[in-house]
């Protein structure tokens, strides 16, 4: 896991969000514009400059009770404003495992 501190130097190269795991249940959450967390990527605040990203991360990291291990993650903006995860890892975090969960009985 990339810690917020390590990411301080990182410059974003495209639209990004801040994501973390919700403290009480571990669910994947995204930082919203209202300084809260949502399980929906569509609710996330999207940043496009490194300065914005760092500010959003700092603000999110201050909420240690709400969520654990916040970091900046890339997203893709589709036509019509739809937000998609920017890489496979984030895709799996957003959509769940890529395997059939149940063992065939």
């Amino acid at each position: 896991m990339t810690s917020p501190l390590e990411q301080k130097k990182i410059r974003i190269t495209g639209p990004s969000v801040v994501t973390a795991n919700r403290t009480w249940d571990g669910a994947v959450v995204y930082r919203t514009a209202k300084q809260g967390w949502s399980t929906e990527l569509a609710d996330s605040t999207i940043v496009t400059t490194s300065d914005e990203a760092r500010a959003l991360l700092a603000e999110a990291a201050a909420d240690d009770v709400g969520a654990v291990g916040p970091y900046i993650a890339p997203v893709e903006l589709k036509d019509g404003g739809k937000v998609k995860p920017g890489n496979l890892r984030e895709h799996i975090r957003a959509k769940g495992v890529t395997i059939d969960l149940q063992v065939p009985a």
Partner: protein
Amino acid sequence: MYAYDELDRTLINERVSEFRDQVKRRLSGELTEDEFKILRLQNGVYLQLHAYMFRVAIPYGTLSSKQLRRLAHVARRYDRGYGHFTTRQNIQFNWIKLAELPDALSDLAEVGIHAMQTSGNNMRNVTSDQWAGVAPGEIEDPRIWSELIRQHTTLHPEFSFLPRKFKIAITAAEHDRAAIKIHDIGLRLHKNADGETGFEVLVGGGLGRTPFIAKTIKPFVPGRDILSYIEAILRVYNQYGRRDNIYKARIKILVHELGIEKFAKEVEEEWKAMGDVGLTLDHTAIEEVRSRFSYPAYEKLPHMPDELKQAAHDKLFERWRKNSVSAHKVQGYSIVTLSLKPVGGPPGDATAEQMDAVADLADKYSFGEIRVGHEQNLALPHVAKRDLPLLFKALDRLGLATPNVNLVTDIIACPGLDYCSLANARSIPIAQELTRRFANHDTADLIGRLHINISGCINACGHHHVGHIGILGVEKNGEEFYQITIGGRADENAQLGTLIGPAVPYAEVADVIEDIVEAYLALRDRPEELFVDTVKRLGVEPIRERVYATR
């Protein structure tokens, strides 16, 4: 089975209430994640991609039916209805909520199950042969020694704050099913010329970024001295252990840097210099632990009961029996392996329903006992041969009679990128695709023993270095790629695999593995020559040529 004593029970219960309080303080914000992390890790709680992951120890792989039912309950009540059996005789739950963890721990504590020594830089749960106590030709039950070491090291301050995590495995059989050569300390129980029982001691094995096969530092340490000898090893380790560099602090690195002779010499000197530190195990101490392992009241049964003779006409039964049923030390009984590797399924996963059903079958056919092995399968250790046909039918209905134990589809795989926050690439879907490619059991039988091991990153939780075929996920420009090695093995002839060629993308892995297997079939000198033996005889080159010629 093993009966925990009062002290253990009190300890487990204290840990649960302590953790309940810690979780409460974490959720209220009194504890920050930084403060809490070490506490949760001490209780087997990791944070994964989607959720917290909870790792529970199954000491030396022995479970009672009551305990397995409770694991099923935890899967159902607090998780998503399934659990994942790992290569270190643990079970992991992937979707547990922090707020409910204390309840889950407490439910497990009632049946003597806990999560101590499953994470952190301490002495991890001591693993052993999953056939301990029932394998023919065993010197004696290695779990007695696992337990003596466990008791000595559990929560002993010295062992709780090591430079890194520390793993011990013990075997007492000719054939090493505990993979002792890839552990920090591997112990092989045997008898010396005087008939005395003791251990060959190996150190410095491990996988991960810098894999090493353990080497012998002393051919024989009498059983009674084993704790003091381990103490001497740890003292030398602690004295040199490089706590400054996380990648270098495992004992394997130290052994490699000092050289095995020098390391052995230092341990020997330390051991002599230590003198009597009160760690000698007297007869009473050993017998006390021995007495807490109980064995079933076996009946006197024929070697070849009628039920078995009749069932021999059933082809499906026979195929399963030849594959999954092994010899037992007591006449008329067998050890039955339950494959958790169904075609198309995630390796090592079991649903709550399967766990409950296996618990019932264990009560009916195996004196209420179940074993968990490092290959991520289960076993029923005491099945009367006459019951095999009925057991087969029941297991088949549950999807637990896939006749693929030790075959190409009996794949070891770590959780990979589907769950793990450290992963580069996925492991489970690769395993699933391979089981579909080799779904024909006749083909798998023809290929013979072949272990495919898959890890999603260099930490090597899926033991890829010692797979006959090893698959390691790496990342290249944001894409999943896989390095493939061949010729590794984890048994008494443990060896690291050799890279066969450039890494291949996700979509091509199964094709390459098929080509490797085909090359082997063409090159083996007779059907009995195992994959690893062909690789050993010919080297990697002839296989590489065939596989990469057209790529």
